[in-house]
């Protein structure tokens, strides 16, 4: 974002950047930046909290009225109230697979889990009028089936001419994660960490993605190996035996 700010300012457009990583902003020195103490992925702060979000945006935009360049970096001091766990949140009931089960069994568990979560996901859409599932342009059942096929060594071609097979696999995994996390959120306010820990440690789908990563990162296809190694399981969730 710092380079973007530089180019835009050179073209005469005033910018202000939100900074999520202060040391990075100190190094790259965009003209104006507001550091916020939030989790990566939420530059404007907590979801569903318009008043808080506007405090962040106002603090950032006010830097545009300042005159003390050539670089300004200020701090936003309020913490994200949604970064703490919600003790009332209960995760959906899932069948946690035992260790070292065959890939075909785990794939079946994942496909059943996706079906079981359907009512919760439908409720999410009813309440929010929105889902972030859709990158793969398949139904969620088809996404699960596509991933299951790869887990069992059936290297499926992409159904779309504009997406390669590895990219299709990545988008199917992204859609499965979004589907499970949306279904699990419910009506309460779990933290992102609560949801991610549940998904990666207590669902068949999370376990299936881990297993697929382990199987395919040994692939001779360098691009496929790189994609599954780096873009499927978050670094914070990778275990020593993954």
């Amino acid at each position, binding site marked *: 974002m710092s380079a973007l700010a530089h180019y835009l300012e050179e073209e*005469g457009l005033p910018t202000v950047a939100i900074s999520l990583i202060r040391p990075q902003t100190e190094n790259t020195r965009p003209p104006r930046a507001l550091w916020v103490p*939030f989790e*990566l992925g939420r530059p404007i702060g907590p979801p569903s909290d318009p008043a808080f979000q*506007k405090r962040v945006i106002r603090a950032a935009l006010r830097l545009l009225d300042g005159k003390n360049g*050539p670089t300004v970096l200020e701090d936003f001091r309020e913490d994200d109230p949604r970064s703490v766990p919600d003790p009332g949140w209960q995760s959906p009931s899932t069948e946690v697979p035992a260790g070292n089960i065959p890939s075909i069994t785990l794939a079946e568990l994942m496909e059943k889990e996706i079906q079981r979560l359907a009512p919760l996901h439908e409720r999410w859409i009813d309440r929010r009028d929105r889902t972030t599932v859709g*990158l793969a342009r398949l139904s969620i059942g088809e996404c699960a089936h596509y991933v299951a096929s790869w887990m069992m060594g059936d290297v499926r071609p992409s159904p779309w001419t504009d997406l390669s097979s590895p990219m299709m696999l990545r988008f199917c995994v992204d859609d499965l994660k979004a589907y499970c996390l949306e279904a699990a*959120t419910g009506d309460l306010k779990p933290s992102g960490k609560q949801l991610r820990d549940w998904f990666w440690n207590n669902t068949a789908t999370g376990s299936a993605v881990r297993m697929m990563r382990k199987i395919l990162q040994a692939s001779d296809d360098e691009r496929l190996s790189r994609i599954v190694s780096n*873009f*499927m399981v978050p670094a914070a969730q990778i275990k020593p035996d993954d």
Partner: protein
Amino acid sequence: MVRLIDLPAGQAKRLADLECPDFQTRPWASGPPLAQRRVSVISSAGLFVKGEAAPFRGRDADYRSIPLKTPAADVLCSHISINFDRTAFQEDWNVVLPLDRMRELAKEGFIGSVADTHYSFMGAIDPIEAENHVRELSVRLKQEEVDAVLLCPV
């Protein structure tokens, strides 16, 4: 509160050390008072409007347009990195692309107006590869009479 020390060591180091060109100049553009400015938002979340544009693939250095009238339900995130929280965006797109908040701030008179179009790049792209795209975008922004840009990384 999340700081670099909360992240896995390798990821934290990569993020803190992320390279940016060593620019020799420090441009500083200015404009009218905030209450008169027209503001556009640029996200680096790899956002796109489904059915209207392609998702980002890998580290595409170009950008996607998101008209202000776009319903939240039509905006998806195709960012390649999985090492940032997506649950907040799933619940409320304003945490990444705060268009509802910008409308409210314009109505309150805090800013002059909200631009008709907003934009997204993919994060962590090569700044050199992105330069021509950004300069081309600057022409569009000026045509849209934008005189303030809020940059929202993820």
